[in-house]
C-alpha cells in the first residue's frame, strides 16, 4: 500500500474533493486533499506527492500562481481542473509547467487516464526515454528519425518531422500552441498558430486514415494538440 502513488488534490469544492478522493482511493491511490492554495503548497512541500490535481479557481490565490510556485522547486506532474471557457487560464497554467488539464464537469475515466499518463511520463523522465513511439499502425523511431505507416516509410519534410517528433516524444500530453511553436520554429515564431494549422493538416494527411477525423494527432480546441499513442 505504501508503494501506491500519492496524489494531492487541491480544490475548494468539498463535493468534488469527496468524489475524487472516493474514486482515487478505490483505485488504490493514496490521496491527500487541500482546499486552499497555500495549504496545497505546504502539503506539496512536506508530503512530496507523486502527482497534483489542481483546481484553477481557488479562493485564496490564482491556480496559475500555485503552478508557477510549484515549478520553482519540483517537476512533479500537475493536472489542472478548470471550468469551460477559461482557455486563457488553462494555456497559462500549461505554459507555466502544468502537464495536463481537464474541463469540469469531467468523466472519471478521463481523469484516471490523465493520471496514468502523467505518472508514466514522470517515471520515464527519471529513467530511459522510449526511443520508439507506436500509435496504431504508426511507428515513430525518434533515434533513427524514421516514421513508418504499417511497413511503409512515410516521407516527411524537415519541419513535419520535427513537429511529429516533438508530439511523439510528449505523447498523450497536451502541448500548447506556444510551446510547440517555440520548440519547432523557435521562440520568435511562437504566435504563428497558422504554421501549426497548416503543418498539422499536412501531417494528418500523411499519417491519418481520415485527416478530418484524426485518431492520433488530436486538436485540443483553443489550447493546442495532443498525440495519442498506444498504451
Amino acid at each position, binding site marked *: 500500500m505504501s508503494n501506491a502513488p500519492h496524489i494531492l488534490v487541491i480544490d475548494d469544492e468539498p463535493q468534488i474533493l469527496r468524489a475524487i478522493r472516493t474514486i482515487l482511493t478505490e483505485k488504490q491511490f493514496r490521496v491527500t486533499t487541500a482546499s486552499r492554495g497555500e495549504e496545497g503548497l505546504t502539503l506539496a512541500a512536506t508530503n512530496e506527492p507523486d502527482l497534483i490535481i489542481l483546481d484553477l479557481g481557488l479562493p485564496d490565490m490564482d491556480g496559475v500562481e500555485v503552478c508557477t510556485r510549484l515549478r520553482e522547486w519540483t517537476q512533479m506532474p500537475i493536472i489542472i481542473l478548470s471550468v*469551460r*471557457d477559461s*482557455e*486563457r487560464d488553462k494555456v497559462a497554467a500549461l505554459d507555466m509547467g502544468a502537464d495536463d488539464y481537464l474541463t469540469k*464537469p469531467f*468523466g472519471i475515466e478521463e481523469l484516471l487516464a490523465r493520471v496514468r499518463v502523467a505518472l508514466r511520463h514522470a517515471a520515464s523522465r527519471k529513467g530511459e526515454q522510449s526511443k520508439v513511439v507506436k500509435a496504431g499502425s504508426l511507428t515513430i523511431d525518434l533515434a533513427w*528519425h524514421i516514421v513508418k505507416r504499417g511497413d511503409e516509410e512515410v*516521407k*516527411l*519534410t*524537415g*519541419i*513535419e*518531422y520535427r513537429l511529429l517528433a516533438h508530439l511523439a516524444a510528449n505523447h498523450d500530453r497536451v502541448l500548447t*500552441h506556444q510551446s510547440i511553436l517555440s520548440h519547432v*520554429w523557435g521562440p520568435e515564431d511562437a504566435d*504563428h*498558430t*497558422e*504554421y501549426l*494549422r*497548416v*503543418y*498539422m*493538416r499536412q501531417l494528418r494527411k500523411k499519417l491519418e486514415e481520415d*485527416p*478530418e*477525423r*484524426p485518431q492520433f494527432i488530436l*486538436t485540443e*480546441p*483553443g489550447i493546442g494538440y495532443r498525440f495519442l499513442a498506444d498504451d
Partner: protein
Amino acid sequence: MNSASMRASSVLSQFWKYVFAALLITFVTVILFVLRGLLDTSIIALLYLIPLGVITAYWGAGPGITGALLCFLTFNYFFIEPYHTLAVHRPTDVVILVIFLIVAVVISQLVGRAQAGLAAATAREREATQLYELSTALTGLHDDQTIARILAKQVHAVAEGEYVELNITGSRSLRFRLPDTDPPVRPPELIVPIEAARGTLGEIRLWRADRAISPGEKRLLQTFASQGALALERAWLAQAESRAQVLEESDQLKTAILSSVSHELRTPLSTIKAAASSLRGGEVRWDSPARAELIAAIDDEADHLNLLVGNLLDMSRIESGALKPKRDWNILAEIIGSVLARMKHLAVEHKLEIDVPESLPLIPVDYVQTQQVFTNLISNSLKYAPPNSMVRIRARVEGEMIHVQVSNQSPQVPIQDLERIFDKFYRITAADRVTGTGLGLSICKGIVEAHGGRIWAENISDGLAFNFTLPLTWDGAKPPQLPIDTEME
C-alpha cells in the same frame, strides 16, 4: 450685386474708396473740360451727377458726399466763368451751383442709404442661411462626435478663422480641432461658451488675426453655439433613452431566462434525481438491465445539463458584449471535422454531405466559437430534419468573405419567422416537443456577428438552409504566407 462682389468691395479699405471716387471725378472732369466749348453749364451740372450716382452706389455715402463737394469745386473752378477761380459772377450760375450741390448731396445720401440697407439685408440673409445650414446639418444626429465636428466645421467656414477648437467638458469630454494641428500659441481672439439648460457644456475657441471680429459675427457665433448645445443635449438624451431601453430589455431577458431555464434545468435534474435515488434506495436489483439504463440516464442528463448551463453562459456573454473572439488563422475543414467527430453518435440517423474545397484559404476565427456555431447549426438540423434525410455543409469564398451553408430537409419555416428563429427563446415548435434552451441559434448569431459576419436562414426547395458569412481578412490582413520547408534528408 452678388455676395461675392459685396465681399470684394468690403475688402477694399475705406481709403481706396475715396481715392477711386477722386479718380473717377477727375476723369469725368477731364472729358467735360475737353467738351467745355460745346456744352451748356447746366448740362455739365447734370452730367456731373452721373459719376456721383456711380460712386455712391458702389462705395457708399461717405465717398458720395465727399465726391459731391469735390464736383461742386471742380464744376465751379473749370466750368463757371470766370474760369480757374472759385469766384462766381453771374447770378444764374450761383443758382445752378447751389441746386447742383443740394441735388448731389441728396442723391448721395439716398443712394447711400439704400445701399447700406441692401448690405444689411444681405448680411442678415447670409446669417439666416448659415444658421439654417447648421441646424439642418445637426438635425437628426445622435452622435455627439459628429455634432461637435459639424459645429466646428461650420464655425470655421463662417468665421473664416485660421483655427477653431471646440472643447466639450464634463463626463463626456471631447475635443475637435480645425485644422487638425496644434492651436496657435497666442490666446484665441474669441471664446464662445456652449451653454445649455443644465449649464455650460464647453466652449468654442476661435483664432482670427487678420481682421477684428465684428459684434454681428460674435452674435452669429453665439447663436451657433446655442444651436450646438441643443443638438448635443438632444443626442445625449437619446443615448440615455436607448440605454434605459437596453436595461429594460435585459431585465425582460432575465425574466424570460428564469422562466424558460427553470423548466429546462429541472427536466434533466428530475431524471438524475430519480435515477440516483432509485439506485441508492436499493429498489433496482444489482444485476438488472434497468440499472445500467439508469446509470446511462444520469450520465446523459448530466451532459445535457452541462450543455444548457454552457448555452446560458454564452448567451449572457453575448448580451453583455463580453464575447470577444480570440482569433487565429484556422482551417475551416478541420473545425468542421472536429465538430462532426464529436457529434458522431448523434448523427447516426442522418446522412451528411460535406462540400468544403481543399483550396479554401485560412480563416481568422475563434476555433472554439466557430465549433460552437457548427455544433448548434448541425444539432438544430438533426433535431428538426426527419431521419434518413440529408444534412449538407458547403463552404465557398465569395469576395472578401467566406460563405458557409448548412442545409437540411426539415420542414420549411414560414417566411415571417425566418428572421425570428435567431431570437432568444424563440421556437416554432412547441417547447414540449423538442428539447433545448431555444438559445442555440441566437448564440450562433451572436458569435457570427462578433466575428463581423452575418447569419440568415432561407427556405430551399427541399428544406431549410442556414447561411453565414465570415470575413477572410483580419484587421485588413490577408492569410499569412508560410516559411519555406525542405524535404528531410
